[in-house]
């Protein structure tokens, strides 16, 4: 009872802070200084139509590299934590019911389409709302559908880790090329900027974002595979 009251009091306090924030909030009518810089200079600096992608990949590219590293760490720790548990495959095979005809056939039809959508989303990241992280998540949802269709499906861990480390290397490699041939680390002007709105434009952004997509997809898939590989206790 005391616990409930404490929780309620705490929530009322936080709620009061939120209410004060909400009542004191007035939406801006003009872009602030930072946003105005991005709005005015994105096309000139990077050639990307999607300003969010330009910020994520080029202006704040170093943060994205850190983010990808955090994600890699998370995937690695999930693998490490779950790998030490034993999962005898034989018992699982007996316990699990079959997935059902509908799911198996549906997965066979849908998985290639989902993968294609994921690739489309990250290849067009610099033009449309989308990008590496979103596309990678879509790729992983395709892998999840495969796992649902066949829970005992063996994913090649070697393939996943190879895709993952290769994309990481390309990301850092493109960044280092920026040092040599353009203004600095992760500068996208190592390749020609092209015309605004073309698929092959915005310098290195499509390449970096595609490999970010592959990397994120591989990391999410490996998390899913590790979590689904856990034995039912």
């Amino acid at each position, binding site marked *: 009872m005391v616990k409930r009251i404490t929780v309620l009091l*705490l929530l009322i306090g936080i709620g009061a802070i939120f209410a004060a924030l909400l009542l004191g909030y007035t939406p801006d009518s003009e872009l*602030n200084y930072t946003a105005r810089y991005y709005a005015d200079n*994105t096309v000139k600096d990077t050639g990307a139509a999607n300003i969010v992608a330009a910020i994520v990949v080029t202006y704040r590219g170093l943060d994205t590299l850190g*983010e990808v590293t955090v*994600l890699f760490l998370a995937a690695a720790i999930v693998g490490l934590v779950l790998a030490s548990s034993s999962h005898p495959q034989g018992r699982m095979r007996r316990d699990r019911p079959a997935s059902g005809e509908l799911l198996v056939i549906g997965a066979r039809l849908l998985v290639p389409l989902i993968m294609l959508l994921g690739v489309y989303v990250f290849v067009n990241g610099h033009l449309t*709302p989308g990008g590496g992280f979103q596309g990678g998540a879509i790729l992983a949802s395709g892998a999840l559908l495969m796992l649902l269709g066949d829970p005992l499906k063996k994913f090649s861990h070697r393939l996943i880790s190879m895709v993952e480390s290769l994309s990481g290397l390309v990301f850092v490699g493109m960044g280092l090329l920026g040092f040599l041939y353009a203004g600095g680390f992760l500068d996208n002007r190592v390749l020609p900027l092209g015309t605004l709105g073309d698929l092959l434009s915005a310098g290195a952004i499509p390449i970096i974002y595609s490999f970010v997509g592959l990397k994120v997809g591989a990391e999410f898939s490996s998390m899913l595979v590790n979590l689904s590989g856990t034995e039912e*206790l």
Partner: protein
Amino acid sequence: MAYIAMATGFILILIGFFGALTNRNILRMIVAFTVADTGVNMVIVAMGYMHGRTAPILDVAVSAAQAAARIIDPVPQALVLTAIVIGVGVTALMLAYTYKLYEKKRTLDIAQFTELKW
């Protein structure tokens, strides 16, 4: 519009906190944390919204010259993009640790884990 989205976000944060503080089951606590996470993201995105403007993507409708007058703030969106991805990683980590805890104690009741209690 921004107010509705922001208020919804704040309410989601409160619901998440309430769920995390009152539930005993660790899985339910993780779900509650995810709800609070979504609320935070909604608040940040709502902060960048400006009435009568469009998404920060340039095309035929929004040319580069008039971008500053036509688009909403792209910085919160870039921030939330990061936050969502890190949120997924954190959730996966929590689930993995929960599995280990269950393996050890065969229960998900948080009250049974008394090692760090004081």
